[in-house]
């Protein structure tokens, strides 16, 4: 990141080599359109380029920072295009997580991803729903409460319990690998 902050465009390219597939995949999943995802991914890396000197390692990893930028870029793009696109995406993505058989073949199918998806699929539906809305629709807990009609406290507890279970399962998975 220090090379990027210093104006080394090749270092930005290396960052892209490392995280480009995840960034593009996240944005694609959030927006549902390859053309939009390409445009927004480009904008996200451009934001990284311009804000590299604002990155603080003590606040978190590069990938967490990068994914936050990508996520916010997708949210901003969706807002700029109106809510209609967002609502359609929410419905689609919620269904995709509820029914694993609908996961597209083009989504990465390596063993690790399958294990993670299996862990997500094993969550209670109400926890899966709030996590899906957070991950793939970029909604905050408050927005999820408003969207689903569930009390905010309930949403918070579902997020907390769902992530705790994923952390536990995926932590075990790490040990087994």
């Amino acid at each position, binding site marked *: 990141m220090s090379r990027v*902050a210093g104006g080394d465009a090749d270092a930005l390219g290396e960052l892209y080599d490392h995280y480009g*597939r995840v960034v593009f*995949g996240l944005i694609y999943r959030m927006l549902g359109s390859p053309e939009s995802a390409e445009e927004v991914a480009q904008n996200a890396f451009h934001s990284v*380029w311009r804000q590299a000197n604002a990155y603080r390692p003590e606040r978190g990893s590069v990938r967490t920072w990068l994914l936050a930028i990508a996520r*916010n870029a997708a949210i901003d793009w969706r807002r700029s295009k109106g809510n209609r696109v967002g609502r359609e995406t929410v419905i689609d993505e919620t269904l995709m997580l509820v029914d694993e058989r609908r996961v597209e073949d083009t989504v990465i199918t390596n063993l690790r991803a399958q294990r993670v998806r299996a862990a997500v699929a094993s969550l209670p539906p109400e926890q899966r729903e709030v996590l899906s809305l957070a991950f793939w629709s970029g909604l905050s807990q408050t927005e999820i409460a408003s969207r689903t009609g569930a009390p905010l406290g309930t949403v918070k507890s579902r997020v*907390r319990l769902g992530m705790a279970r994923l952390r536990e399962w995926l932590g075990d998975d790490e040990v087994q690998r």
Partner: protein
Amino acid sequence: MTRHPIDNLAALAIGALDADEARAVRAHVAGCQSCGAELRALEEAAFAVVATAERDVPDGLRSKIVERARREGVPRQAPSSPLFDLFRRPAPLAIPVALALLLLVSLAAYAGARRDADRYASALAGIAGARVVALAPTGEVAGVRGSLVIPATGAAPYLILDLPAAPSGKTWEAWVLRALESPLAAGITNERGVTTLVLTAPLASGDGVAVTLEPSGGVDRVTGNPVLAGKT
């Protein structure tokens, strides 16, 4: 904060906390090893989930990104004002509520006391059917005042400003501030005293607005420190 925000760490890890909560939790985590370790573990799990969406990238995307960066050259440091720092962070952030409240109280008191004689206060008092947001003077330039007016009709938002004469070779320039993006140039004025400036950049809920002194004619990328700033 002495109480560990355990309940909010998962939401922070997946970006689902509202901005104010996220800021408070981050402030705690910065000084708490156990919460920091917990957050990192949750971020690992969150990354694992996000990584399931990983997919092949379009041909040429890498070169577009790298070439664009090359064209722009070395990223410039944004002004050192903490107001700009707020909008450079990944998560959407707001100007502290206390500051906003202080501004509103100050503005209300000011307008009430000088309504008859003060053109600025009169201009504000004449606004109907619009949301008015007071802009905070940063102390960079003395005697500046400003408010953002967002008409309920959907018409373009505008600023009511009370400014001293810009120094020779300089102009006042308005900016729209958005998290993760560079400030958007939103119009210039060379007027002295009370004036109206319609924002030429789109303004969305949660965006910030600032006014800086820039070279005559205005610039596309901000160079000066904000003299006024506020948030929608």
